């Protein structure tokens, strides 16, 4: 094995709450692949969309503090939440492009003896694994192939949008690629990068449920046995609201959702507990039993 990759790790608020299993499994597989994730000390909220909706400059400031902390560590920042990815990247970019914004933020940071020179790259763990680690290293660790497990690869909206030039903005393929390396079968999933409606669940449930329904419908129509997610918000939305969808639209979906890191961990031979696989709201037991031996 070559040299280890080092990153500052930014879990984001969602992984502290309802999505601990994502955090757990991300750390486990990263370690296995030789990616050193050191949690960014005392990180704060990225300044996500709800914050940006009220305060523009302070939202950038929140991102900037995280970036400044990462710069101090002289490492790039690995994130697992695509919304954090977009928010952090956005501030990073806009500060680079707009000198006025850069100056404003710099003077604010200075008040706390912080500075940010713009050297940190923000990257999603999936992209790091597919591009930096690569097929050979990943495949070498697959001890328990997810033989023919039919998975709907779900990226959600903000993995490549609007800034990700590393994959297609409407039909990304990185997760599909990774799933194939694990022995699974990514199904055709045209809605793979469409919005899950998660943002709307508290504020406008009918619209949100409609979106979840089309996702479930599309995944099921294409024969998926589970959905692989890379976003904590998509994940919780798909699993927690399946019941509501079934009630509202008289459907009977029972699609388990698993983080891509959990699927990786399984293929690498880790046990379910290490990956938080017993924590999902819709059990994946039966499908995993069918495809993954000795789980």
């Amino acid at each position, binding site marked *: 094995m070559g040299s280890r990759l080092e990153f500052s790790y930014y879990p984001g*608020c*969602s992984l*502290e*709450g*309802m*999505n*601990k*299993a994502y955090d757990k499994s991300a750390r486990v597989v990263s370690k296995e692949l030789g990616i050193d994730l050191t949690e960014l000390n*005392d*990180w*704060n*909220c990225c*300044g*996500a*969309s*709800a*914050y*940006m*909706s*009220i*305060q*523009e*400059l*302070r939202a950038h*400031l*929140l991102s900037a*503090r995280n970036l400044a902390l990462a710069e101090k560590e002289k490492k790039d920042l690995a994130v697992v939440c695509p919304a954090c990815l*977009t928010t952090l990247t956005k501030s990073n970019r806009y500060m680079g492009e707009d000198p006025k914004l850069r100056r*404003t*933020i710099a*003077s*604010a*940071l*200075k*008040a*706390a003896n*912080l500075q940010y020179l713009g050297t940190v790259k923000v990257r999603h763990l999936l992209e790091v694994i597919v591009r930096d680690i690569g097929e050979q290293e990943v495949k070498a660790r697959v001890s328990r192939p997810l033989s023919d497990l039919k998975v709907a690869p779900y990226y959600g*909206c*903000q993995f490549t*949008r*609007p800034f990700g030039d590393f994959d297609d*903005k*409407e039909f990304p393929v990185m997760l599909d690629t990774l799933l194939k390396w694990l022995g699974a079968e990514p199904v055709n999933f045209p809605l793979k990068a*469409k*919005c899950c*409606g*998660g*943002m*709307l669940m*508290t*504020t*406008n449930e009918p*619209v949100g449920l409609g979106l979840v329904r089309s996702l479930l419908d599309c995944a099921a129509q294409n024969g998926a046995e589970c959905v692989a997610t890379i976003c904590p918000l998509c994940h919780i939305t798909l699993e*927690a609201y399946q019941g509501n969808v079934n009630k509202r639209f008289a459907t009977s979906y029972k699609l388990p959702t698993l983080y891509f890191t959990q699927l990786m961990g399984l293929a690498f031979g880790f046990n379910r507990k290490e990956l938080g696989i*017993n*924590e*999902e*709201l819709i059990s994946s037991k039966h499908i995993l039993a069918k495809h993954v031996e000795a789980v």
Partner: protein
Amino acid sequence: MDYTPREIIAAFRAGLLERVLRSNTVWLCASCYLCTVRCPSGIKLTDIMYELKRLGVEFGLVQEGAIAPVLSKTFVDMVDRYGRVPEIPLVMAVLLKTNPLGILKMIPHGLKLFLRGRMPFWPHRISGISELEKCSGAMTDALVSGLHPGSGAGEEA
């Protein structure tokens, strides 16, 4: 969607932004950025939506009964207090303000999450919270000028 994005741009040009701010469109935007990457005219619509949200909140021009602005404001308060967002308390606080009965509906969800160890109750306060306050304070002046000039809310005669 009361107004399509194209109509929002048209309303802005016509000086009729107020009716847009009062519509459901702006707060329906979930920031999926699909419009931004597709727009053939290179308009960063998602950023414009954020700007409109901020304008609406600042001038009190939001759709009656809309929950999203309440959620955003609560979100900001919590981030300012803790440095991070505790998800469950956030949702609870929003429901308390807008639809207290909704909390009852959430109980089954909550219970399931709790049983699986996915319901942390106590928010974590970051130690750099005073640091952030200092920075924010230093920026207060700049905040006023941070508003987009010429985004003429309330131009309607």
